[in-house]
């Protein structure tokens, strides 16, 4: 591991002041410390932000304001999160292990790096580590990589489960000293940048608006029953009245470099009968935009089945 200095911030201004060229903010460290050990992340200074006063979850009307240093385990155990936003609690609980959830923070979770094996292997070319080096995954093993939004430079997926639920919940990200931004804008469209944040930008909270009568859940398909990243996951929430879908939110995980909000499927579902043929039609509308690679076309079927199955379960349809 490359030598680095360590500083601990107790106020957001102090954190931003301490942050300089080569700095990285340290949250739970569950991804960053590992990447430093692998030689992928090479910060010259760590600014520890875990003791900033953002470790609370505040109920904000029918919504929530979640501090960026709240640990994943506390978020998932919070009574209001479990009762009103089970899609979020379930997404967080389906990620990582009990040990890692006790360390990982909300802010760090949003900014974690892809688990593409080539990104994590400094002996293999990777555009995300060094733009212009090439992408080893495109011709290599990419069975677990993206089917939406791929570029010639990168086909990586975003690994977070929590962020998929937050995308479905229309969450905003609050940044110190700036206007809050929709979660979708945090990830942007640059094929190799991890987020649209500028160096030194500090996430302080995540804001979740009310879920207006929708019931939701999170489903995750992976290669073992627990403690694995998603091949495909789905955060879904629907409001069905008299057999007709009033409103719905769908976000897919494991299929793109960011949580993939399935807006085409949502549009196809609004005011449609809550029936399996309609769910299939909506899933097809979304997946028509997929561009699978040689080794991951199975994800198209997996995502379709996951959308249809989950909506059927939520809507009690046959």
């Amino acid at each position, binding site marked *: 591991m490359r030598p680095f*200095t360590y500083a601990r911030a107790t106020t957001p201004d102090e954190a931003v002041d301490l942050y300089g060229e080569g700095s990285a903010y340290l949250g739970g460290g569950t991804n960053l410390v590992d990447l430093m050990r692998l030689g992928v992340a090479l910060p010259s200074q*760590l600014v520890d932000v875990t003791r900033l006063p953002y470790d609370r979850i505040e109920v904000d009307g029918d919504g929530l304001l979640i501090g960026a240093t709240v640990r994943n*385990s506390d978020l998932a155990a919070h009574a209001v999160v479990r009762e009103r936003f089970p899609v979020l*609690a379930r997404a967080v*609980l389906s990620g990582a*292990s009990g*040990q890692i959830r006790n360390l990982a923070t909300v802010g760090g979770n949003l900014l974690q790096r892809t688990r593409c094996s080539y990104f994590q292997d400094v002996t293999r070319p990777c555009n995300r580590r060094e733009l212009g080096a090439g992408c080893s995954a495109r011709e290599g093993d990419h069975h677990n990589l993206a089917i939406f939004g791929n570029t010639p430079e990168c086909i990586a997926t975003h690994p977070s489960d929590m962020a998929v639920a937050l995308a479905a919940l229309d969450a905003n990200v609050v940044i110190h000293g700036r206007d809050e931004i929709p979660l979708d804008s945090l990830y942007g469209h640059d094929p190799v940048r991890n987020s649209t944040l500028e160096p030194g930008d500090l996430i302080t909270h995540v804001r979740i608006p009310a879920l207006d009568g929708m019931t939701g859940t999170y489903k995750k398909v992976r290669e073992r029953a627990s*403690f694995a990243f998603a091949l495909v996951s789905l955060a879904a929430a629907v409001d069905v009245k008299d057999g007709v879908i009033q409103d719905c939110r769908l976000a897919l995980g494991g299929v793109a470099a960011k949580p993939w909000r399935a807006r085409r499927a949502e549009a196809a579902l609004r005011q449609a009968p809550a029936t399996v043929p309609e769910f299939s039609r909506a899933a097809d509308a979304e997946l028509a935009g997929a561009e699978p690679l040689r080794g991951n076309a199975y994800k198209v079927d997996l995502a379709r089945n996951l959308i249809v199955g989950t909506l059927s379960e939520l809507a009690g349809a046959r």
Partner: protein
Amino acid sequence: MTEKAQVRIGVNGRAYRVEVDTRTSLLDLLREGLDLTGTKKGCDHGQCGACTVLLDGRRVNACLVLAVAADGSEVTTVEGLASGDELSPIQSAFVECDAFQCGYCTPGQLCSAVGMLDEAKSGWPSAITDDLAESPVPELSAREIRERMSGNLCRCGAYVNIVEAVRRVAK
């Protein structure tokens, strides 16, 4: 600023003050700096759970925690579970159930089980808990124990007996 740091840390009830290289993990501090070799290094990437300790009462992977970031914390390792010669309930249950073969993952399994049982007692749900809003969480089934202990791998495959040992203590 330097790349060394002073760390004050309590381990198994004893207070330490040590100088560390900022790169030192909590795991390496315990094993190399404080000579507490009960905590094991497996993958060193947070994937196997062999290094699990209790940090301020919560189970964590000691390999992913920088010692400098744990300044001011209280750590319990496998050496701190027993009271003298008297084994803790989870340690006794592991012996009774023959819940190990080579034993390398056992310190991590034990600390993880202690942390997990505390989480369950606090009413924390898991990914497979049917009704998340329900509190307290119903009794820990074998399936719940497997899900909640999935951060600890055992390459000997002693899982069946590990689940039984944890289940006995959970009752």
